[in-house]
């Protein structure tokens, strides 16, 4: 009776319809889940994750970039300092080397000079000694010649000439 009142147009309660609709609905839900709901929601979740990741990684890379820039600036500053150190070191080294070279050159010159002086002195001494020897032998020769002979004028002249000749010969032989 109730069913007739409620349903109005129908004479029986279509229990079969209810069952049929429930089953159709469940099958429909299942199919949608397999073909659309599952993949789409998965993709939406993936996208959400991806976006979150992208935001995070973007933040991270921005921080990294800032850090890198800072490092580079510091390195630049360091390199300036280093360069100036290198230059000043080089200058110092150059100065030192120059001084060294100059000093050593001076020393060498000094040594050379001394050597030269010593050798000159030696030569002079040798020459003097040679001259002395010559004079001594000459005087001895003259004396002996004077003693050996009483000389007349002609002889004397002869003697002198012979001596001079002897000298010339001596000179030539030298």
């Amino acid at each position, binding site marked *: 009776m109730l069913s007739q009142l*409620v*349903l*109005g*147009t*129908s*004479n*029986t*309660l*279509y*229990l*079969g*319809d*209810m*069952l*049929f*609709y*429930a089953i*159709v*609905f469940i*099958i*429909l*839900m299942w*199919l*949608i*889940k397999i*073909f*659309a*709901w599952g*993949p*789409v*929601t998965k*993709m*939406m979740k*993936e*996208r959400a994750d*991806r976006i979150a990741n992208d935001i995070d990684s973007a933040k991270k890379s921005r921080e990294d970039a800032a850090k890198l820039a800072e490092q580079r600036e510091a390195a630049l500053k360091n390199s300036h300092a280093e360069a100036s150190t290198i230059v000043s070191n080089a200058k110092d080294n150059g100065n030192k080397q120059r001084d060294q070279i100059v000093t050593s050159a001076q020393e060498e010159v000094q040594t050379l000079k001394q050597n030269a002086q010593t050798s000159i002195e030696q030569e002079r001494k040798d020459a003097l000694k040679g001259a002395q020897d010559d004079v001594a032998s000459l005087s001895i020769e003259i004396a002996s010649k004077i003693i050996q002979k009483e000389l007349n004028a002609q002889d004397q002249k002869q003697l002198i000439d012979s001596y001079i000749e002897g000298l010339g010969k001596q000179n030539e032989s030298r």
Partner: protein
Amino acid sequence: MNGESVSTFQFLGLTFNTTNIISGLLAATIVFVVVFVLSRKIQLKPTGKQNVLEWMIDFTNNIVRGSVTNGDAPKFGLYAFTLFLFIFVSNQLGMFLQIGWNGVTYVRSPTSDPVITLTLSLMTIMFAHFSGVEKLGFKRYFKNTYLTPFVFWLPISIFTELIDFLTLGLRIYGVIFSGEMLLKIIGGMAFSGGPLMTIATVPISLIWQGFSVFLGSIQAYVFVTLTSVYISQQVQIEE
């Protein structure tokens, strides 16, 4: 309309209404085909069809999230989505397509039959209660649903559940049935008074059809909203 003949058949001792079977199958098929076509070539970067599908999913998900607030919402998204599409298509089906033969209408809105709307309503209520038991355990579910705020609230609670079930189903039935009824009356008027009458009824029919489409959409929305409200009542403990 009273007196309209109905085609029924018996199967396994149950009575089936041919109209409802055909219409329901048609509605379900339309829903499936639409969703199937829209869900081809799912990509991470959505384009065209996928945007439409995702918009629909977001739409129903937002309805559910509006009432179920404690993180359970994703579990009911699929149910709400399917329910919304099925009811929406069912509501609109009769607006565009009414196939009759030998005085029997074979295709119309399935939701213009109270048996169908009450079936959907019953499914929703059962789903809500089942979710409640699953979430809270039977004891807490029973206490939460029937014995709050007082123990002697039990009869009122049971009555409330019955009312929820009936109003949920009959609201949509009323709207869709009356819409179709009026369309039929307008259609009948069109062929009762000569060509002048036919021309005169065209704008009326157009207006009413548009309004029915609007009502059908609203009813689908309302049905899903109430569904999520009932679910949230069961799965969330009211303080």
